[in-house]
């Protein structure tokens, strides 16, 4: 599209594009974002919504004497239990806690 041919390094071109697109996103209204989330079948009003996957909760390690998953579940506080219930599948006793509904791109 430019009238004269110019050559940019790919990383320079990418940086320019990403910064311009970032400005677009900064101008997006809250309503626009929530509408798109709903179109994608997400409900951002829910704490465990897939829209917030990998943003709001993480998993840390602590060392305690535990003899199996049931004992571990028993050691959880009420708030931890509710978060766990929201983030694990209904049938999934073996579902890893860190399993994301929206996995990160690794390719």
């Amino acid at each position, binding site marked *: 599209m*430019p009238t004269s041919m110019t050559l940019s390094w790919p990383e320079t071109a990418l940086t320019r594009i990403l910064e311009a697109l970032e400005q677009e996103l900064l101008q997006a209204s809250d309503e626009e974002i929530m509408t798109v989330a709903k179109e994608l079948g997400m409900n951002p009003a829910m704490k465990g919504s897939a829209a917030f996957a990998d943003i709001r*909760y993480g998993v840390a390690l602590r060392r305690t004497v535990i003899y199996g998953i049931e004992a571990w579940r028993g050691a959880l506080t009420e708030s931890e239990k509710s978060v766990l219930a929201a983030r694990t599948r209904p049938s999934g006793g073996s579902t890893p*806690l860190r399993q994301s509904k929206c996995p990160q791109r690794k390719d």
Partner: protein
Amino acid sequence: MPQTQPLDLHIVATPAETALALKLVSEADLLRLKIIARLHARGLPADVGWADLLQEAFTRVLDGSRHQPEGVSIVAFLAGVMRSLKSEHWRRVARESRYGQAAPYSQVDEGTLDTEPRDPAPDLERSLNALQELAAVDRLFVDDPIALQIIAGLAEGLSAERIRGAAGISKIDYDSARKRMRRALLREGLACRLA
């Protein structure tokens, strides 16, 4: 039987959740920042994820190592921190290519950086990543010729006015295309899979 002490998983609030609890950001802001983080993670190596970029930006703000200037919204500020983290990453990669992984930071000064022979591999990796991501951005707007013209103009560093002039796009068509692009970016950033 000896008593073992296995590691126990503990759910913790992330820096982003902490910022939400402190009312530094709203839930819509979190989603906006997630989309921006996914955008900025483009071109970074696969081991640097968008969530790392986002949480690190929140951490820098929460621990006070980055201060929000007056008159700049927290979302714009965090987006800037993410950009700066990206630059930091590429500077670190460049340093490591010259001095090896264990090179002390004290040995790295601007003068030395300019004179030492360079390993071209990290630059090559960065360029290849960038080429792949440029192709991915094009794919995102493949059904929208005006959006592709805008992207091509942005890649050349042209202003909106010059893009419109060079491609012969009216202001109305340009603004409509920008809206479609924003929508596509929002969908892309919130969806589970990236193009």
